């Protein structure tokens, strides 16, 4: 089983967010990329767009499925992972590293505390598994 890095927080919709100063990087979890299968396209917003917490900011597609992407906390998009346009497979290969999606400038880090840490997320995944 993949170890989920504990330098970041996770959402129930399987995004992760890692804070560095007031800039946070957002991606999807290893579990999410496995569920989606081979990712063929990532649709991301333009820098400058502002989203609320849990608002849809883009979509990610495999051959036969589309998943919405939700921003873990409110913020303004400041950078996209441009490499994904040519290499969307990076999300499959390295979801917690090179497969990151966007960087955002967050308005407050209070919302971060409501998200799960790595241990809680792993527990959450186990529960989901049991339910299914």
């Amino acid at each position, binding site marked *: 089983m993949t170890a989920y890095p504990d330098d970041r927080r996770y959402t129930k919709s399987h995004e992760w967010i890692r804070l560095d100063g007031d800039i946070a990087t957002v991606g999807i979890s290893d579990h999410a990329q496995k569920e989606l299968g081979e990712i*063929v*396209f990532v*649709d991301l917003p333009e820098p400058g767009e502002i989203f609320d917490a849990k608002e849809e900011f883009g979509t990610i*597609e*495999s*051959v*036969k*499925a*589309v998943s919405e992407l939700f921003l873990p906390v409110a913020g303004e998009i400041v950078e996209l992972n441009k490499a994904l346009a040519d290499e969307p497979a990076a999300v499959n290969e390295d979801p917690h590293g090179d497969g990151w999606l966007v960087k955002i400038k967050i308005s407050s880090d209070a919302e971060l505390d409501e998200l799960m840490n790595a241990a809680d997320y792993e527990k959450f995944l186990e529960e989901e598994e049991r339910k299914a």
Partner: protein
Amino acid sequence: MRYIPHSPEEQAVLLSAVGVRSVDELFATVPKEVLRHEPPALPPPASEIEVRRAMAAMAARNANLSEWTSLLGAGLYAHHTPAFVPQLLTRGEFLTAYTPYQPEVSQGTLTAIWEFQSHVALLTELDVANASMYEGASAFVEAVLMAERLTKKRTKVVVSKGVHPEYRRCLKTYLANFPFTIVEVPVGEGGATDRAALEKAVDETTIAVAVQSPNVLGVVESWAAAADAAHGRGALAIGVVNEMFSLAVLKGPGALGIDIAAGEAASFGVPPSFGGPLVGFLACRDAMKRQIPGRLVGRTTDANGKTAFCLTLSTREQHIRREKATSNICTNQGLFALAATMTLSVLGRQGLRETALQCLSKAEYLKAGVRAIPGPFSVAFSGRTFNEFAIHCGPPVGDVLARCEEKKILGGVPLARIAPEEEGWRDLLLVAVTERTPREGLDAFLDVLRSFPS
């Protein structure tokens, strides 16, 4: 019945294998109030001989274009279909296959659709074309909806009245429940869209500007003028074409700035068949391909390196994205996209050009003939035309058509029939020719016009 193979004995064997005594038991969960035991009020079953006779009797009550001289067009042009096309089209492998969802057993259909996409892209001079739409008008609507997704948060569609009235009517029908306004721009004296009015109608809220060329009056429009008017305000330009042979003598919309082309490709090997089935098309620039509606076929290789074709970018479609899909379209016009592809393949580079030149030349001949008549007829507009133009009639259009009919000529489409709301078009008769129209037919039509006193 002849299409159900089971003999009564075989049916009994199946029923007993299923574990029921009668067919009725299979319908046990249908509420008994609604299950009918008496047959429907239809005639008795009929043989091929009887059914064919009944259908032939109905067919005989139509004026058919192979027996009449026809100048009918207005969006549907009766070109010649190469003889092999219907014969190959009815091969069971093409006719009775489903949508090619399983590429391993559908390479025939997929190859042909990819070729259709290639032909449409070449003709329109755009990058990408889809696997077909139902027909021209709904293809046009889909182009507008696509433009809306691409421009986002804009609310106005500017449409030339040169766009076929039925296409505009469809746009209003489909858009009735969207918060968009449709602004229609009149045509000017030459018969082309009034350029000043067009530019005035476009603003920062405009999604797209749509023009048709040749337009519903037969007049060739300026793609570039429409594109400039749109792009100047950040809107997209949509080009409608419903006589695709025109693109063998006129620059494609993509070459002159149009972003999305849509319309009717039935001129290529699709018989008129009282207006359907036809074959719509939609083409766009590469940057817009993820917003294209309907199916797309892509080319790849299989594990052994063999070229193979496959439906792709399917996440745009309803079976995956459901209410968020780019369109609700599912079944499209596969067989007639194939007919168009077969026809284009055999026409080829030279045949396309020669056919288009014949259409153009015959129309110019007819136009010159109308101009030479001293009587109460004139060519209605000064704009350049391809294979169709409007004649201004002194006598009532109905009288002209009635006199044509006596000579077994279908003398054209009264514009009042397709655009009754346009007062200024009431005296106009739209006439179209194709390579099928012989000179004798054109001369006979001119004779009818000459029979009206000047």
